């Protein structure tokens, strides 16, 4: 075990460097934004150059891409998926709808402000964001990770009660297991 503060710092730097270069994105197309993920991942934009690739299950994934609006029904699944993911984990808000409701600001079935329910590390502007913008988003996330500031998951744990209260306001029928990892 390393207890020394300085050596911990060095370990952090190495860890962050490694994490930065292996961003595995959970394959969950929550909204229409998912349509620009295939072009980003395939040959033309080839996100794998940057260490970004898909992961099939939450436990193997690092990044949860919220590709646009979340309906209340999906929000429930997304929360569950997010809590199943293991640290380190990050959330990217994709497009207008995650910021302030976007086109669906007056819809009775979509949430408007994502960061009330999940900690968001990076927002990407656009509706829909182009692959270049998506890659910039990943770039920003990498920068954040490298600087050790990507602490959304920590925030979530620390403020779990606040997040839970907000989540439960939208999801009246809260039957979900607690994932404690």
């Amino acid at each position, binding site marked *: 075990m390393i207890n020394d503060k300085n050596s911990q710092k060095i370990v952090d730097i190495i860890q962050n460097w490694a994490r930065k270069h292996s961003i595995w994105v*959970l*394959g*969950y*197309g*929550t*909204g*229409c934004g*998912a*349509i*620009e993920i*295939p*072009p980003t991942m*395939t*040959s*033309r*934009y080839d996100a794998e150059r940057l260490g970004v690739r*898909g992961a*099939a299950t*939450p436990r193997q994934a690092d990044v949860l891409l919220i590709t646009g*609006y979340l*309906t209340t*029904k*999906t929000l429930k*699944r997304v929360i569950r*998926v997010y809590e199943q993911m293991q640290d380190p984990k990050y959330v990217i808000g994709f497009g207008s709808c995650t910021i302030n409701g976007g*086109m*669906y600001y*007056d*819809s*009775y*079935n*979509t949430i408007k402000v994502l960061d009330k329910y999940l900690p968001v590390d990076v927002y990407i502007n656009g*509706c*829909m964001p*182009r692959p270049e913008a998506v890659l910039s988003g990943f770039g920003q996330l990498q920068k954040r990770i490298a600087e050790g500031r990507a602490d959304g998951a920590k925030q979530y744990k620390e403020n779990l009660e606040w997040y839970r209260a907000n989540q439960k306001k939208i999801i009246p029928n809260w039957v979900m297991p607690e994932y404690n990892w």
Partner: protein
Amino acid sequence: MREKATTLYLGPQHPGITGNMMVRLKVEGDTIVKATTEVGYLHRAFEKLQERRNWLQAFTLLCRFCVPEPDPVEESYARAVELLEGREVPERAKYIRVLMLELARMGAYMLWYGGQNGSLGLYTMGQWSVGDRNYILDLFEELTGGRVYHMYIWPGGVRRDLPEGFADKVLRTMDYFEKRLKDYDDLMFDNTIFQKRTQGIGIVPKEKAVEWGVVGPILRGCGIKSDIRIDDPYEVYDKLDFVVPTHEGGDIWSRALVRREEVRQSIRIIRQVIEKMPSGEIYNKIPNPHKWALPKGDAYARTEAVRGEVGMYIVSDGSTHPRRTHFRGAAYVHAITLLEKVLVGANVADVSAIMNSLGTCPPEIER
């Protein structure tokens, strides 16, 4: 010996699923005995929102109904409005619309190439076809200003004329695709794995197909010649020369063959459109959108998309806002009642391939 039935949840978070939806499978061994589709993960209440917007504002929501191929939705809405209002569309706009629709069809089929193969574990195809699809998106970007959301076909015509040199670019892209399609054939249709995983699987019975509401390439994959472009021609399809391919069999394989041929027909149509396109106006301008009221009544217009018949039913009470809009997506039928029937007896491993082949697209189910 009967095995104990287990329930399997496929989705909403599952790499093999075609979008944000869920299929509840009751399986015995790995044979499905009952499948139930559960949707609603993408319900944004578009039609409710459109009632709050005026007839033009409502148009911008349309392309979000089905993101892989938004143009047929725009086309249906535009045509329904024009039908209700009696608005004429300039000839050139009609040609441009057909060009858009066929490019969109190709783009969506490129995604399907990737999805269908991906569902069988053949990932190379996705790298190729989805990568190549970007060339179509580039064309869209140049023509409409957007890669994915075009918001281009609107009531009265289209928004902007072709930019300079656009026709040549389209033709060059078509040349490229013609070459590439041969590669696709080598990789996909001649591939033993693909053949064995698709032939005789996911069969839609021909005698029931029409009654079950099957449309589009899936119906044609049952050997029934049915295509709105020919049966109920819109825009200028009746002036163009193309073939509606059919294949007997009703399985994934014959649907794939239909689609393979349709991409080629799209290229053919696009070449004709470029050649025949007249010059002239592109837009029969609507009045000030804030005060644009449609006469009382209703109209339904439908368009042939890659998934089959998509349509828009609009009702006007004579005001500036729609009384009701109701979108008909092909997946509304294919992904629920049809999928539930086709999946029975299928192998769990084939579910993803069958879903891809039936063109399930959840956003157009729940809207």
